[in-house]
């Protein structure tokens, strides 16, 4: 617990909490128009009293756009990671706990899928399905699933070989009870740690996809999309890229710090 309250853990947790609050609450209190209103006299303006983070090429306020864009980025990342856990968890547990032929077939497939770079897989799926918000979630979710399934399988396999599982089996525990009482609680720490770190990767992936125009599409606003829009104005208005870029970086940093400390506390076996 003391390590949890170390500087790194506290800063990480604070960043994650603040970003979550912004993502959840900002849309309730800040009207959409703040982010879409165009101030034609102040296009590509640097930080001023009126626009503390400056404005973009259409004169829209970058502060409000970043704050309101948080919802899209965080929501896409969260939903994608959730999706990969929901698919990866049963696959990983079945593979690791029951083993045998199912395990061989599933893991051969997972290994093959891992040969595809996650971003390439996500981009391809998104391009094939047609880029929009829902398909971005699906694309990232599918791209992350093999990785999570592999991790969960390894954990399930490790736990399944523990003496307390054997003792429970000798005590007449059925497979379903075993998974619920013994396997799940003991692989949960690893899933939480991996989920946190995957969340960081998912935010990066969403930004990458949107940056390439194969993720979120206007009028939805996300951080990656803002960076993409800034590309043509880098020379004259670098802050249009720096502001959303910093938002991505700080959120991911917070998640990584939080994940590192979580790992030390919950799951001291695995290496970063």
């Amino acid at each position, binding site marked *: 617990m003391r390590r949890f309250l170390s500087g790194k853990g506290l800063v990480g947790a604070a960043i994650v909490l603040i970003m979550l609050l912004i993502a959840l609450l900002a849309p309730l209190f800040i009207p959409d128009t703040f982010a879409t209103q165009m101030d034609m006299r102040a296009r590509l303006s640097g930080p001023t009293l009126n626009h503390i983070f400056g404005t973009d090429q259409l004169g829209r306020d970058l502060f409000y756009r970043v704050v309101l864009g948080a919802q899209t980025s965080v929501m896409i990342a969260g939903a994608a990671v959730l999706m990969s856990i929901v698919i990866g968890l049963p696959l990983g547990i079945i593979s690791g706990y029951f083993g045998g032929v199912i395990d061989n077939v599933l893991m051969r497939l997972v290994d093959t899928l891992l040969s595809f770079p996650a971003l390439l897989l996500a981009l391809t799926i998104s391009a094939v399905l047609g880029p929009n918000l829902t398909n971005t979630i699906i694309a990232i979710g599918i791209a992350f699933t093999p990785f999570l399934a592999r991790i969960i399988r390894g954990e399930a396999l490790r736990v399944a070989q523990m*003496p307390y599982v054997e*003792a429970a089996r*000798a*005590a*007449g525990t*059925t497979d379903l009870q075993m998974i619920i*009482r013994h396997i799940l*609680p003991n692989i949960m720490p690893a899933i939480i740690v991996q989920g946190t770190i995957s969340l960081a990767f998912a935010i990066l992936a969403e930004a990458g996809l949107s940056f390439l125009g194969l993720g979120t599409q206007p009028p939805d606003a996300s951080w990656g999309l803002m960076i993409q829009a800034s590309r043509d104005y880098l020379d004259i208005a670098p802050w249009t890229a720096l502001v959303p870029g910093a938002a991505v970086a700080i959120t991911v940093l917070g998640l990584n710090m939080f994940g590192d400390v979580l790992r030390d506390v919950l799951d001291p076996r695995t290496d970063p």
Partner: protein
Amino acid sequence: MTPIVNIEKLRVTFGKGTDAAVKDVSFAINPGETVCVVGESGSGKSVTSLSLMRLVEFGGGTIVDGRMTLQRDDGPIDLAQADGDTMRDIRGDEIGMIFQEPMTSLNPVFTIERQLTDGLRVHRGMTGQAARERALELLRDVRIPEPERRLKQYPHELSGGMRQRVVIAIAMACEPRLLIADEPTTALDVTIQAEILALINRLKRETGMAVMFITHDMAVVAQIADRVVVMYRGDVVEEGPVADIFANPKADYTKALLAAVPRLGEMRGKAAPEPMRLVGDTSAPKPLTPQDHPEPLLEVKNLTTYFPVKGGPLRRHVANVHAVEDVTFTLNKGETLSLVGESGCGKSSCGRSILRLVEPTSGSVIVDRKDILAANHRDLRLLRRQMQMIFQDPFASLNPYMRLSAQVAEPLRNFGLASGSALQDRVAGLFDRVELPRDYMRRFPHELSGGQRQRIAIARALAVSPKLIIADEAVSALDVSVQAQVLNLMMELQADLGLSFLFISHDMAVVERISHHVAVMYLGRIVEIGPRAAIFENPQHSYTKSLMQAVPIADPAKRKLEGDLNFRPIPSPMHPLSYAPAQSLYDTVAAGHLVLRDIERTTDANP
């Protein structure tokens, strides 16, 4: 005589605000003598030895007080104050050290030659041919066969015993005047332990070096010590010549330590098992009443378990590990049958096969007239109510995320034997039964000590009122005093509930104390089986004899010499699919005392 090393008022801490690991330790080591530093876990014995080498700092420790005077050729030096360069000169040259884990003591990516000659290069400036010749000489000194070939090998190509010999050779390279051995035989099988102890004794005699030997095992102390230093929680509680310590211990802690140690041979002429002696209990141990008309409970016939070895891209079945090979025995109601043998002999696999935690290849297992191996999945679950298991590692055998009461209650809930307040009462009763306070019920495993966890494991096994408990090295991981308490609890439960134990162990002295019958296993087979007295007093099979020969006895008058020991390495139990093992055939020595007919020759013919 000036001591080689004189430790005075040594105090070592790890981090601020923690108790000192070593509080106020003083003792001396004279030239040519073996000093055993003995104590249970947490006594500070290893920290003392690491402090002497000033290696304790690499583990986060700090020497806060005291002096450690080493006699060098040019006069005495205080090691506690020595600088880094001086310490590097001393380490490996004047003081050599060997450690507990031979499997991890050698660098896996360097050859044996490189690791043997490092010290020679640093301290003697020897390289090339000269170093190689010295390395060969060292390997011959520690009796490693084919030394020329070994030099080019990597550590993983050597067995555990060989590696420990190499580690000793490394420590001996520059002929140190002091050898520190930190539990060097704890991780080894008993035959290899005997060889290593005899080797250290001989090297000490031949070179005249002093030895500081750290151990928790009083039997090992008896085998090797000239003088004994007993440590407890960071302090020295007693010190003296080995004969005095064993014959006339003064400190209460030493008495307790000695009392709890079973001595091989002390059960000679006794008909029934006896509880272990405990601290402060001076009354003569009450023997368990022997069974008049034993009824069989567990009948194992021709049990065979192979583990498939898979290979190739399609993970085809390419070979088998013959873990259990044609094993037959009977365990009676209310009795204990011990399976003994060294690591890899198949004793654990045999226990797990009986419970079908691993699937046996063939044979039959009858418990209370029902065939376990013929049962389908559903029947097996019900049959398992008759038999439960206790595992070796007290830290891994409990689910860390489940309350203790829930873990003990789990078998009862699974079989619908109790619910609601009745369940709580049953669980509370089980906690009483294993002598744990009831307020432990709401706790989690990490709040308990190793011995307490083993009690929980026993309570969980008892929950469904089984007739048979398979105890797989159930007390091996415990300190000797705790081990005695847990063993006594098991024997008490046997007397009260008529339980049968299949006791799987490598510890011959414990087995002698608690068993009615004993089966000795080697390479998957039972080589000898019979009543306890027959096996221990009249062993017939050559392997049983060498096992007895190897067991260290907690009596300094009964030491073993290197010449007495000549053990053959155990061959691999892995065989190609085409391998057809010979049947196990036995000769009857006396009623119930069977000895395996010599099939080793046929076994060797099919590598």
